[in-house]
């Protein structure tokens, strides 16, 4: 077993296991962590393919920034509850998706096999003694200079768009906490009990009246929260 084969097998296994983890895990946090496995496996494969700079960028940008962004969103919004995989709202969706995925797989396999697992096209031939980062820099700032400049505009648009979207969302509505009302009620009740234990004599006078008032308030709140949810 050569070193290259060992590296490929381990990294490919990490990639595939991570990919299946992303698709199959019920909890979004687990999916994000599986994604890190896939991205890291691909970074290892980049090193095996002599793209060292891209491997470093892959780890820094993807695993270090994008996945962390995902985790931030999951944890800030508290949407890390498990999805129910048993429900299939659209009947036949999974079967159709399986056919589509198998179709893509078959097409790409056929395309790879039809060229004999080799690239078609003229071999350009680069100087293997020059480090890959030098070659990449030269390519980016000569052949792809225009595209490279355009990416700066893309990034500015993305930043402005993200700021705009996030601001508008905050103005319109606060985050709805489903358990907030129940918790507040529980605390109020505990305070009431403590009060009663401290000064039981003060409660005999208006106990009945307060009870009635409280139930009224309860039903009002329930109706309101029902409206918000529907």
């Amino acid at each position, binding site marked *: 077993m050569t070193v290259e084969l060992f590296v490929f097998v381990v990294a490919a296994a990490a990639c595939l296991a991570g990919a299946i983890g992303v698709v199959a895990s019920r909890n979004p946090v687990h999916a994000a962590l599986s994604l890190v496995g896939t991205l890291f496996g691909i970074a290892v494969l980049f090193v095996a393919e002599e793209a060292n700079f891209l491997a470093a960028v892959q780890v820094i940008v993807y695993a270090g920034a994008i996945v962390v962004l995902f985790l931030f969103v999951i944890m800030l919004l508290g949407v890390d509850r498990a999805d129910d995989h048993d429900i299939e709202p659209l009947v036949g969706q999974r079967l159709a998706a399986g056919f589509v995925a198998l179709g893509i797989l078959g097409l790409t396999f056929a395309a790879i096999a039809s060229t004999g697992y080799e690239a078609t096209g003229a071999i350009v031939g680069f100087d293997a003694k020059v480090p890959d980062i030098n070659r990449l820099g030269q390519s980016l700032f000569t052949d792809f200079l225009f595209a490279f400049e355009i990416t700066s505009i893309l990034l500015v648009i993305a930043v402005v768009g993200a700021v705009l*979207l996030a601001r508008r969302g905050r103005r319109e509505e606060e985050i709805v906490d489903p358990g907030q009302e129940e918790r507040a009620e529980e605390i109020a009740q505990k305070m009431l009990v403590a009060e009663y234990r401290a000064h039981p004599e003060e409660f005999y006078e208006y106990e009945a009246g307060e009870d009635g008032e409280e139930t009224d308030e309860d039903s009002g709140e329930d109706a309101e929260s029902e409206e918000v949810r529907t």
Partner: protein
Amino acid sequence: MIAAALDVTPGWYLVLGSLLFSIGAYGLLIRRNPLVMFMCVELMLNAVTLTFVTFSRMLEDTGGQSIVVFVLVVAAAEVVVGLAIIVALLRKRPDATADDVALLEG
């Protein structure tokens, strides 16, 4: 003979990229949580970058690696805007799925 069969040819990388792309596409089609759908898009993008790097080595052309840099930039921009939209959506309703994007209307 066995040693020749066990050589890692570029074709192996292409097949792995194809598998990753298919898994990502399947996940994108079956999952309903918008965040997980985004992760599946990332999987598909990574499968394509792996293919680009493989072709870059096969053809000894650095252009493939340059394209990967652009894919990274586009993926980063896409995630930033996409997650902002998802944040706006999930603020309206914490249990929103891909079907509820119409909530953002107006």
